[in-house]
């Protein structure tokens, strides 16, 4: 830290009590009296109440839904973790990455190797099934690979970077296909990591709860943790520097932002998220096919980010759930469209329409709702706020 400083901009001393001594003046609940309040995570009562209510509702879901739905929701939670990671690098830091699938794969395989059966002759396994261990391992290995890839971002811009990261996916697919001792090989695959916490495999039914119920709670907890971390990153200096690099990197550098380091961090954080998401995803699915980590998966994550809303954590979550539930939704739709045949050999049939809808929904969404689901939410909220004066 520099020794002499002009008066303005001095901030390194202990924060002087600014404007008030804490505590909100009575009768003005909406007024902030300290910066700490203003800058806290849930800075209004409305936010506290609504987030709290949402969490309670989410925690009760296992009593409201069937197992198949819970499984989808658990998948949604995990996809949301991955989407938050992608949003950090692509939405916040502006480095378009089509390589997310690769890092998801790395996480999935790292976790499976750590938790895998050491006596299995075909694929590696270390036999450490304790969830935090394989989860962290997955995150860290992916993060290290992200670190290795990040210098590319300093050299390449926009779509050049996007296609190069896409190359990563293709190279990764090749690797996964060929590296039998890691992945079991193409068309063979291996088991996903076992979600064991304190000796209990959560995916197994217990007397009280079904495996899917337990897995859902686990994934919900994970999502909450990762979402809070994501928010923290976004609102701290790191998040600001992400945005600065995204909006104008030269100006950011001149303003004192170490652009290379910021890009590096963005990739590291995002791959960490991806790694963890990959590990958790395949502990739900139970089985990893090496061809799962292709362009399509990356694109789905990009779609989650775009549909949810770029540069918002809650948007990423909404986007992930949208994509996770979309196939289910589109599958229900044809029930209301009687002219569709449900026989796969006739056209038009429901399966074609299902895929078609999937593509069309993405298009329509992006065209008509630029700010994504987050934008829809904001609009609803504003409407609600203005009630009964909404127009």
């Amino acid at each position, binding site marked *: 830290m520099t020794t002499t400083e002009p008066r303005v901009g001095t901030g390194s001393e202990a924060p002087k009590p600014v404007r008030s001594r804490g505590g909100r003046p009575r009768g003005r609940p909406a007024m902030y009296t300290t910066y700490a309040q203003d800058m806290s995570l849930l800075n209004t009562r409305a936010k506290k109440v609504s987030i709290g209510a949402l969490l309670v509702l989410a925690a009760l879901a296992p*009593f409201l839904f*069937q*197992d*198949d739905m819970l*499984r*989808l929701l658990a*998948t949604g939670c995990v996809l949301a973790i991955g989407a938050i990671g992608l949003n950090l690098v692509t939405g916040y830091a502006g480095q378009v990455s089509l390589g997310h699938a690769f890092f998801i794969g790395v996480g999935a395989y790292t976790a499976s190797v750590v938790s895998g059966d050491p006596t299995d002759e*075909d694929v590696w396994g270390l036999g450490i099934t304790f969830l935090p261990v394989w989860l962290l391992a997955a995150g860290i290995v992916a993060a290290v690979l992200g670190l290795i890839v990040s210098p590319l971002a300093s050299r390449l811009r926009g779509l050049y970077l996007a296609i190069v990261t896409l190359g990563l996916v293709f190279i990764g697919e090749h690797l996964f*296909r060929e590296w039998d001792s890691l992945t079991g*090989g*193409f*068309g*063979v*695959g291996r088991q996903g990591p076992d979600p064991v916490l304190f000796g209990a495999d959560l995916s197994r*039914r217990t*007397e*009280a*709860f*079904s495996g899917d*119920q337990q897995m859902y709670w686990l994934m919900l907890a994970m999502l909450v943790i990762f979402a809070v971390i994501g928010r923290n990153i976004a609102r701290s200096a790191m998040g600001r520097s992400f945005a600065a690099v995204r909006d104008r990197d030269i100006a950011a550098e001149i303003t004192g932002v170490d652009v290379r380091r910021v890009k590096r961090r963005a990739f590291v954080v995002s791959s960490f998220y991806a790694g963890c998401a990959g590990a958790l995803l395949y502990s739900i*699915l*139970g*089985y*990893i*096919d090496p*061809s*799962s980590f292709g362009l399509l998966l990356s694109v789905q994550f990009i779609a989650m980010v775009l549909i949810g809303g770029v540069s918002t954590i809650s948007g990423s979550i909404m986007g992930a759930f949208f994509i996770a539930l979309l*196939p*289910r939704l589109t*599958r229900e739709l044809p029930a209301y469209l009687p002219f569709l045949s*449900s*026989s*796969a*050999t006739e056209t038009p*049939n429901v*399966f*074609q329409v*299902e*895929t078609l809808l999937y593509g069309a929904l993405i298009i329509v969404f992006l065209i008509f709702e630029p700010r994504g689901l987050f934008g829809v939410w904001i609009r609803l909220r504003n409407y609600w706020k203005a009630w009964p004066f909404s127009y």
Partner: protein
Amino acid sequence: AGCRGGDSGGGDGGGGDGGDIATDVGVTSEPCPDAVNEDNGCIYLGTLSDLTVGPFAAAGPLIIDGQEAFWQRVNEDGGIGGYDINVTEYVRDNQYNPQVTNQVYQEIKPDILALAQTLGSPPTAAIVDDLDAEDIVAAPAGWTSLYLFQDVIVESGATYCAEAMNGVDYAVENDGVESVMAIHYAGDFGADAAAGAKVAADANGITFTNVETTAGPDNQAAAVAAIREQSPDLVIISAGPTDTATIVGQAAAGGFQGRFMGSSPTWNPAILQSPAAPAFQALFQHLGPWGSWDSETDGHAAMREALPDVTPNEFYTSGWVWSYPLKAALEAAAENGDLTRAGLREAAEGLESVDFEGVLPEGSGNYAGGANDAASRATFISNIDPAASTGLATVAEAYTGPTAEEYDFTGPCYEEVDLG
């Protein structure tokens, strides 16, 4: 807390019309939608198939049609144990993707008794543990030798592995080939066939080379180059029809004069319209687990009758034939008075033979014994003939070569055999 009783919410329990048959999930006393027999209850069977974007999207729908025709006939014959069989209500697209498979499987699981079809071995592998845990019997669409080792899977016909063994043995016997090259996709299907070819090559003391290839007509250059370079006497291909056409056509255009044999999914009659058609007619033989569309068996005749207006295709045949074991299992379970999942599984595991109406040799479908007993070993070898309805003119029926005859199935071939 966990007051919502697990998975077994479906079913009316307590039996259908028969009154004496126990049921749980996926069996109702109400008739099926659009039932053939209004008085019968209904057994729901699920289908997980590749219908839109996966690599076998061309095959899936035909297999489904074959199956539907099969079960329609069963229903017209009065159903099983007082129940009609419904295979149309719970058809889902698995996109040949394990993740999607798992999702759609979970979705239909509470409503079905068993799976009439699960297509592809990676997708099936993704759910097989769960099938096992939930006692859900499944008929696979595919011939991977892996299925021999999975209890809840009731497979039919010779595996890719056995098929390739027979191909090599046959070519050695008839054409005296001295070298064989396996060109195949990676994974279950391709590697299984290649493994069989290798076993047979070793058994016959001829040289074997292994070339892996990937889908896409522009990705066959390496395979074609390998043929040109090594000019083996026999090339066994396990790839999709388009890629097979590319390989055969290009190799022939490059002057290759040896023989080609293709695993069952390599053939599509449309190839006869392609520039590679002459090469196929001259050089190619098709290997299949059962007789082609035109075959003279009761089963084939019934199928042709049940599918009167379609353009013949071997995937209809497959869908049809793959359904026999499940029918046998259901009948046995109904006989035992237990159409619960566990009951069906028990019945399936106890099957000592299945009546394939002559499509497969007597004694096929012995799931009661080990893998070796369950394994069919017969292969139908055909030449390409534009006159036949699906372009296949059988030259050897139910051929079983010495290698396959003696082979001991101790694990999936592609895991047991090192392709080097």
